[in-house]
């Protein structure tokens, strides 16, 4: 992660009014590593190949957090996300949202073909 990202994460966390757990807030790589669990399906740094499932890079952190809470409760219908969302606590979801907010959307790199 670039050194300049950490203030951006701190700011974006403050902007939706919930402080993230101290351990996560003090370690900028923790948010990055948590968000990396999402990269498998949503693309490296949240830039999804062909946009399925949707890209998360540059998304509003409060909206992402709200969406994950709605997946958890079942308010928002899903095939799989309600099951994944329930695996994370609130401070982890906030750290993940803050990380994606700090990443610039870009077109996803793709593997070469022989």
């Amino acid at each position: 992660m670039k050194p300049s990202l950490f203030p951006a994460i701190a700011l974006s966390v403050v902007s939706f009014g919930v402080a993230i757990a101290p351990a996560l807030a003090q370690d900028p790589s923790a948010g990055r590593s948590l968000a990396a669990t999402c990269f498998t399906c949503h693309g490296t740094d949240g830039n999804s190949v062909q946009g399925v499932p949707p890209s998360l890079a540059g998304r509003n952190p409060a909206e992402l957090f709200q969406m994950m809470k709605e997946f958890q409760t079942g308010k928002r219908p899903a095939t799989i996300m309600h099951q994944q969302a329930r695996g994370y606590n609130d401070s982890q979801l906030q750290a993940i949202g803050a990380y994606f907010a700090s990443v610039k959307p870009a077109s996803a790199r793709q593997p070469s073909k022989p």
Partner: protein
Amino acid sequence: MGLTRREFLKLLSASAGASALAACETPGSMDAARAGPRVVVIGGGYGGATAAKYVKMWAPDIDVVLVERDAHFISCPLSNLVLAGNTTMQEITMGREGLGARGVRIVRDEATAIDPAKREVRLARGAALTYDRLVVSPGVDFIYDKLPGLRSTEAQQRVPHAWKAGAETILLRKQLEAMRDGGVYVLHIPIAPYRCPPGPYERVCQVADYFKRAKPKSKIIVLDSNPNITSKEKLFRTEWEGPYKGLIDYRPNSELDDVDSKTMTIKLTFDSVKGDVLNVVPPHRAADIVRNAGLITANERWCGIDWMTTESVAVKGIHVLGDSTLSGPAMPKSASMANQHGKICAAAVIALIKGQPVAPPVIMNTCYSFVSGKAAMHVASVHQWDAAQKTVTPVKGAGGVSDKSSEIEATYAWGWARNIWADTLA
């Protein structure tokens, strides 16, 4: 399928030559040029390629060298679809050039030995590579000790496993295509743990999809060493009793005794079963390279690791990833998991090299199974670090399976594939 075996092999050897030309540095000159810390990764599959990419991406100052013997990455996930003609080998075959573009140095060679005292990896062709930390993600090898009838190459050609995607996938597809309508395909499944728990049952669905379309008089016999379907049981039974009703004869507790490839007979403890196409998946263990390095710690098969760091519990400075590991509680041997192991390994390796604390890991699993060319279903779980148990354990109340297979989940399954391929290789 759009590619014959001969064409495929030609393609492999042609690009092997191209890669050798593209590699302008030899391992010897790499050692001479070495200034900062170095991480060597053995194996460019879902675990190793991801670890190599993420160490370089998150810590560009670390020299990352990936040792890989094969020219191309061929995905095991989706390879069952090739058997049914629902996708092609081209679709699941990719290069690793994207890792090179990120600064990972790729050495096309085979690691033959690890010397933990010298912190050195010996190679079949090039000079040895020294490391500060070594990551080993070699996948699985098959155990033929108790299967004398399958030890010869000839026998293995007649009775393929097709449990590593590549030449055997093509071979099994050809056998299924050549089989007469009204023939019998027999799949033998080893006792768990094995690579990809739902994989055998997905294969049954794929072959059934192909038979229904092309050879409707044919039958499938499933000989499962396990007492029941090991993953997505109700979902698979729904398919077998629905669209594939009458096609599949499922026989649990079918322990394998041996195989007679001449008479095409699978010998079980109390029975024997003949077929036109036999597909035996032998039991697996961690690959040879880790066995010889003393990394196997459990049942002479798997490598025990500290799930906080992925470091071997037996040999310091060496991290083991993917299917070779002694899995954590309820952790499947899957591509998703190997990719996630790669990331927790990368974070830990960087922290350990830089003398920083390692954050407790969280990992997630998503496995899709295609039940036809058009519909898929999933199993998912999230695993968090448990300080009391000192391992990662599945979060209660999280995870689960699909309500039913669907076309929308097939779209997501393809999305999963395209993204995990890019996340691992580009």
